[in-house]
């Protein structure tokens, strides 16, 4: 029905008239179409952000009501607190380790799955499987693996006559355990994205490299990785941002411990605001977290801006 329409354009009403008619009603439609989303975003995104900022300049009581205006002193006391700085440091270590390991392993999985072999689809499906695992399930699987008496790691060390590490009660190894679990959870998604990028690399490039006699390993570093560097950068930033927001695995596996070694930024906000009832401090920490994440998101937008048409 629609296909024959363009022919009518010439002898139809003057299109200016139509445009004018629709311009009038467009604003009305816009209210209906945009209204619900706008209201929700105002209520649950814009307002809370401003409110958080507001609260960070005040002291609060146990119910979260602001009591006295204190200017920037919440910020000053936070960034001079050694405990906050160590949380920040731990978070940076965590975030960098997670994003680098995720991308490296993601590339390994994607390159391996990008071969034409019998049954490769099964491997591709399995490689993406962790995407279907939610936080609490991952936490339970890994809690079991790291358990000092029944876990596989403990049993392996025992079998090899190595000292048994109590993974989650030693500050250093607890961080390693959280990193491993987080990387594992990220793998499925990362694999899918990198694999998608690999498939768009022209096959002729590899054929040419084969003819010249460049080894497969050199091809990986000289052809594949440069060709998908944009995607790798994107995945890295997304992983980084997500890692900054980590909460669930920490809550179930270490509760920020031992000795605050895994007390990363979001877990700290939760503890300060909802366990200790210090909402002002929680708000101040939230603002600092937002600034950090906003910076990385802007970098990501800049990258997206090049590839997405506006």
């Amino acid at each position, binding site marked *: 029905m629609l296909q024959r329409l363009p022919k009518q354009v010439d002898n139809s009403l003057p299109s200016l008239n139509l445009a004018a008619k629709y311009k009038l009603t467009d604003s009305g439609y816009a209210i209906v179409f945009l209204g619900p989303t706008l209201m929700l975003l105002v209520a649950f995104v814009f307002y809370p*952000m401003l409110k958080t900022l507001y609260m960070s300049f005040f002291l609060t009581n146990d119910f979260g009501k602001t009591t006295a205006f204190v200017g920037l002193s919440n910020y000053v006391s936070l960034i001079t607190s050694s405990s906050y700085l160590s949380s920040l440091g731990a978070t940076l270590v965590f975030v960098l380790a997670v994003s680098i390991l995720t991308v490296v392993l993601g590339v390994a999985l994607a390159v391996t799955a990008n071969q034409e072999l019998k049954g490769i689809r099964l491997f591709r499906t399995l490689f993406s499987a962790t995407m279907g*695992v939610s936080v*609490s399930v991952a936490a339970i699987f890994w809690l079991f693996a790291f358990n000092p008496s029944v876990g596989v790691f403990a049993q392996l060390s025992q079998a090899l006559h190595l000292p048994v590490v109590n993974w989650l009660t030693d500050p250093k190894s607890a961080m390693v355990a959280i990193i491993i679990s987080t990387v594992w959870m990220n793998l499925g998604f990362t694999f899918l994205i990198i694999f998608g990028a690999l498939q768009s690399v022209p096959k002729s490039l590899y054929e040419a490299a084969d003819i010249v006699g460049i080894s497969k390993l050199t091809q990986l570093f000289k052809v594949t990785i440069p060709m998908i560097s944009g995607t790798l950068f994107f995945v890295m930033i997304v992983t980084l941002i997500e890692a900054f927001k980590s909460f669930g695995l920490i809550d179930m596996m270490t509760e920020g411990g031992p000795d605050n070694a895994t007390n990363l930024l979001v877990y700290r906000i939760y503890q300060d605001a909802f366990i200790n009832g210090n909402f002002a401090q929680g708000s101040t920490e939230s603002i600092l977290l937002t600034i950090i994440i906003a910076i990385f998101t802007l970098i990501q937008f800049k990258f997206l801006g090049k590839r997405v048409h506006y």
Partner: protein
Amino acid sequence: MQLVTNDHVSKPSSARRLKKIGQYAFLIVLMLIVVSPFLLGFWTSFLPTSQISKGALWGKLSLANYWAAFTTTPILRYLFNSIVIASLTTVAQVVFCSMSAYAFVFLKFKGRKFLFYAFLATMMLPFEAEVIPNFMTVKSMGLLNHFAVMVVPFMATAFGTFMLRQSFLQIPKELKEAADIEGLNHWQFYYRITLPYSRISIVTLAAYSFLTSWNQYLWPMLTTFSDNFRPVQDGLRQLQSSETFNNWGMIQASACIVVIPTLIVLFIGQHYFKAGLNEGSVK
């Protein structure tokens, strides 16, 4: 006889055969790294806890742990809660995000550009940094400990709007012009042309919002206090931290009960997911 045809297909020299074995070996090693936590979880979910706590990874396999999880824990109720919450969130997000995306693509109105950038800006704001005022909001609205508290704040997102906008932009201009001449109003064009045309992106957004809602952890932990409304994530946390903590067999069975539905959704929806991920903002 069969062997002959096989030979015919691959005709490998021994070097090529060796290479093939190497390729498969590497694939299998990587696969084991990825799936071993699953395998361990599945396997132990069939073992009696008495065996597991001795550190043994063998024993009489049975469904006893699953039976115990179904009968002595509210795991089914948690699953039901999560399905209700995630479905409602998904439907709301698809409807509201597609409507707002439509407005940004097909409607001309004052402040469109400004609003669009405001939407984009919200993507920089982590929800985790806004839980304090949001908690107070839902508390004052009387929504605490109810399905609504898990649904209402997530009924529309800037990300969903942005993603669908990218997809709506691909709709040929001629289609809109033709529809204008035909006299289709915006509702009709939205409903009859835009949504069907962008169905892959819509399905992708639906899958994405379902999984995101399903995976919510911090928010339900703060806002739901009873088994009647608690979703699975918080439910598993509850089971794991309660007195059942050392009943490893049952905990693993509960984890498997929770993970199997999402794995099935993932495997079925993967085809769509891949297409959507690669056509959308990610390339």
